[in-house]
């Protein structure tokens, strides 16, 4: 026990760890591709959404903004006519 070379152990952890991380992600990538293929085959979307929306909390504020815009537009049309 006293003679364990901890640095060698750390390198072994690195081999195991990076191996598992890459294994996990490679399988994940294949599953993503597979599900994309299956989904787009069996549930083709007529008006698909763009994926290019930023990572962020689309929380209340945004919803309110949307609601506000809808309401404002409606208001506008009323006033025009």
């Amino acid at each position, binding site marked *: 026990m006293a003679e364990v070379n*901890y*640095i060698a*152990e*750390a*390198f072994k*952890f*690195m081999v*195991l*760890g*990076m191996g*598992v*991380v*890459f*294994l*996990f*992600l*490679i*399988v*994940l*990538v294949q*599953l*993503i*591709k597979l*599900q*994309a293929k299956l*989904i*787009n085959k069996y*549930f083709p*979307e007529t008006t*698909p*959404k*763009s*994926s*290019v*929306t*930023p*990572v*962020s*909390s689309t*929380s*209340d504020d945004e919803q309110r903004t949307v609601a506000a815009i809808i309401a404002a537009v409606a208001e506008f049309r009323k006033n025009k006519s």
Partner: protein
Amino acid sequence: MKIRQIFISLLFALVAVSSFSMATEEAQSHHESNSEQSVEKKPYESKSVSQLAGSFLETTGLYAIFNTDDGETTSDPAGASKERPMGAFESSLGRVIMILIVFLLFYLAIAKGFEPLLLLPIAFGGLLANIPLAHMAGPEGMLGVIYNMGIANEFFPLLIFMGVGAMTDFGPLLANPKTALLGGAAQFGIFGSLVGAVMLGFDLQSASAISIIGGADGPTSIFIANRLAPDMLGAIAVAAYSYMALVPVIQPPIMRALTTKEERRIQMGVQRKVHKLEKLFFPIVVLMLSILILPESTPLIGAFAFGNFAKESAVIDRLSDTMQNSLINIVTIFLGLGVGSKLAADKFLVLESLGIMIIGLIAFSVGTAAGVLMAKVMNKFSKEPINPLIGAAGVSAVPMAARVVSKVGSEERPGNVLLMHAMGPNVAGVIGSAVAAGVLLSIFK
């Protein structure tokens, strides 16, 4: 109106008097027989005003700081079994140094905008934890109560992760899945710094706890530190959040050193459209995979997947909004204060903390470099061009690192927007770190 109110008060008093007079004797007898067990009141001895003032002086913070042999003990949320008499340095100059460090953190959070949402509560918790005599980090103090409520059992970091899951859009990753591998390469930051930490003399378990700073992900760091090296939690959390805040300073030089101008100017195409069912199934796929390969990572990935699934299901928006707003805010306040309690001088001012700070810097640098190099390799073999800069986003530090990539990229070629392409490795880095954390946990199980 006033007369009426006074009348009501009188009425109230009358009702009370009449009932009290009935109740008194009986209740008193009960009360007294009981009071022996209740709060023990010390017999009170008369003191002159100057005696009172003298004993008051001994309860001032000034006195406590200049009198180091007053038998004060350290505080620990676990209670007396983990407490010990304070050293002279810890109870005097040590506190002062910690308060100066706290002020530095305030400065960084407020004036520099470095991750203030967590650095500021952590720093304030550190300030409170270093108050002499108040024992706010003890089991009956506010910080100790918070610590036992949600940090000792890892509940708060998981709730934060749930909220982050509910805020995350996996669209960019799903559109270009192979960029997930960049989020894997950046985990060299974790395992590289593990080697470094062992070289500095940390034992393997502590080194593993420290190395997770390289994951650049706050809740994961706190979760692992709490499991593997709870005494170092404060330093690890502070290092993790500090360096995440420093990402715009640390990353660009490394990114530029490892890439050519031509590589940095590479443009990437428009991402394909992602079906909403793909987004819906994705958190379940990730969770199932981690169940099969790595159950140790499922608390983290499970909480994250629940938040994301709640959002993408679109049928429980009021719950997913709560996860993203009031719940994560409340937990952030508590998590910050609770983690800050580990900035007490007796816990933080040890040589390990310096080592942790150094290793943290290595971890971020190695992770960035590994991500960029991996992206260069992928660019060689890929049909579609891959700008190597996006590899740097693999360290996570969502979404800061992706923004840094976009900024550096547009410096070379104005109008080259890499943000969405960088988000793929960025969120993959979160998953990669959780997997790496699971591996480390499984080793020390």
